[in-house]
């Protein structure tokens, strides 16, 4: 009886493989995806939107996303990749650039935001115009002052590359290359960039202690900054006007998306994690250093703007000492294990240039 059951199971299995396994035999390798998980750091809230609800995270999808992220093919001239403006050593912002370079010597009009912990961010871009991580790349891909390419050309270029066919097969089950799969793969890479191992995090986990100066800075932060730059993500992801005058591009921020005058000059509150690496600051990179940013909040805010955030009406009162303490606290948010993580570097490169600014 036991043998009979075994034979029955075996025959069923053979027929099942014969019926379903045919698609595996197309010359582009096998489909055997290894699931991976979005690791939520201890003590963090659950991500607000489940960005992977319809995008099963796999090692193969992540690797494909990484290859796409580092590939200049996605741009018109073959030179500009996502990574051109989102550099790992700058926590995936553009190092030392107020604005980023696009194809044909063009410049963008906004500072490239750092990419990490995106699973907690439900609206992307400084004005929150993007409603899902998967559709975000469409903007830089097609903007004439960024990657300047059409989606159609991108897909056609990828289709001519056998290595992509193999990787799409490995990630999605067959070698078909389409925009949806490309965008889902990119989201698997960018959506799993987690930065949660700074000195601050180690202090929170009891693995390190702040210096007395950093500790004082943390106290200043908690009383003067934390209402917008909420822990542990260091942003509440709201849109606020922090009193910067309208810039030369007439960038009205959130108002462009909502068309409400009450949203004029409001921009997404950025996270302060890795701020040491993401200079210059603000939506147009107009402020070069962290002390200068703090000085803006202390003395620079244009208080006559009607949409100025109510918490900034009296600017932020800080002594020189508190200002310095705050700078040192912000330095504890630098996470070099993130900027050095070879999981995020292109395959075949085992180390990454890193200034190593961490306070450890």
């Amino acid at each position, binding site marked *: 009886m036991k043998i009979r059951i075994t*034979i029955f199971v075996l025959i069923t299995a053979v027929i099942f493989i014969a019926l379903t396994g045919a698609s595996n035999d197309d010359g582009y390798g096998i489909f055997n995806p290894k699931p991976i998980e979005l690791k939520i750091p201890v003590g963090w809230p659950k991500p607000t939107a489940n960005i992977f609800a319809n995008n099963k995270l796999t090692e193969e999808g992540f690797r494909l996303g990484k290859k796409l992220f580092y590939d200049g093919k996605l741009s018109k001239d073959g030179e500009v990749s996502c990574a051109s403006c989102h550099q790992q050593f700058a926590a995936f912002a553009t190092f030392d650039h107020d604005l980023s370079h696009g194809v044909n010597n063009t410049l963008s009009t906004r500072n490239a935001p750092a990419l990490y912990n995106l699973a907690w961010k439900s609206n992307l871009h400084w004005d929150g115009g*993007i409603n899902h991580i998967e559709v975000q790349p*469409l903007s830089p*891909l097609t903007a004439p002052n960024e990657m300047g390419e059409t989606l159609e050309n991108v897909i056609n270029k990828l289709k001519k590359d056998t290595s992509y066919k193999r990787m799409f097969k490995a990630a999605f089950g067959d070698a078909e290359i389409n925009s949806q799969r490309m965008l889902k793969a990119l989201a698997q890479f960018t959506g799993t960039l987690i930065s949660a191992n700074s000195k601050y995090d180690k202090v929170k986990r009891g693995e390190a202690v702040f210096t007395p100066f950093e500790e004082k800075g943390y106290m200043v932060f908690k009383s003067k900054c934390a209402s917008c730059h909420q822990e542990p993500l260091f942003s509440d992801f709201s849109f606020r006007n922090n009193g910067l005058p309208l810039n030369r591009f007439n960038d009205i921020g959130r108002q462009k*998306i909502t068309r409400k005058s009450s949203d004029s000059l409001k921009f997404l509150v950025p996270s302060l994690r890795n701020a040491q690496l993401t200079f210059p600051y603000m939506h147009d990179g107009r402020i070069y250093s962290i002390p200068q940013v703090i000085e803006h909040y202390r003395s620079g805010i244009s208080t006559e703007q009607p949409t100025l955030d109510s918490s900034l009406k009296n600017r932020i009162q800080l002594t020189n000492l508190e200002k310095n303490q705050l700078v040192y606290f912000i330095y504890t948010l630098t996470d070099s294990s993130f900027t050095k993580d070879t999981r995020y570097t292109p395959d075949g490169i085992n180390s990454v240039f890193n200034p190593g600014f961490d306070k450890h």
Partner: protein
Amino acid sequence: MNSIFIKKYWFLWNSFAVSLIIMMIATSFTLNNVPGAANGTLKIRFINTANGKPVVLRDSVYSNVFGEQYQINKLKYYISNVSITNSNGKTNFSEDCHLIDAANEENIIEIPLQAGKYDKLKFLLGVDSIRNCSGAQTGALDPMNGMFWTWNSGYIMFKLEGNSTASTADLQRIEHHIGGYKGSDNVATVIQLDFNTAKNLEIKAGATTELVIETNLDNYWHGNAAIKIAELPMCMITGEPALKVAKNFTRLFSVKEIHQAP
């Protein structure tokens, strides 16, 4: 010899047959999930017209009710969530999304339906809000179709591009990208068409009935709202002007012909 062979391997044959049946049932479940027995097909054909003529891109000059002359270079719109109700009040619903494009040789939506008489058709002109914020889509909703805003996420539900001597815009262009899915900005419009009872639409088993829907652009410019090219040559953001244009959407469509299955 033969009987011994059969007897000896009886179990083997038996399990092979049982497995095959299980596989066939499993396969049939995945291939055919349309309930009901006798099925026919409804073929909905969309025909775009202006001034009583079929729309030909980059060719004919049409005029609207205000006497403004225009040419059409692009005409695309989404039809989704098609539901069709039979004479017993039973509704067949499909959440599929279709892109009607005047550049296509023909624009046809095929729906498998149970045999019977049908008297109501309802569909959404546009894309429902969920599909506007669910990430990357494929098929008709592939952003490659040029119907997705990259800077302010959401689908363009109706796109009309062309030229007009009445246009004050650069190169006398008309660019109407009508979209918006959030709350009061939503331009997706439910269209309901009742069939004339005299020529009730009938689906017959194994046969195809064709329903021809005319999209009459003459009604795009007036009816519930006056849309003058001179005043609105460009409309590429969500909100007020787009909502005004969308007011005329309900008047765009009518049943032109029904070709009953023989």
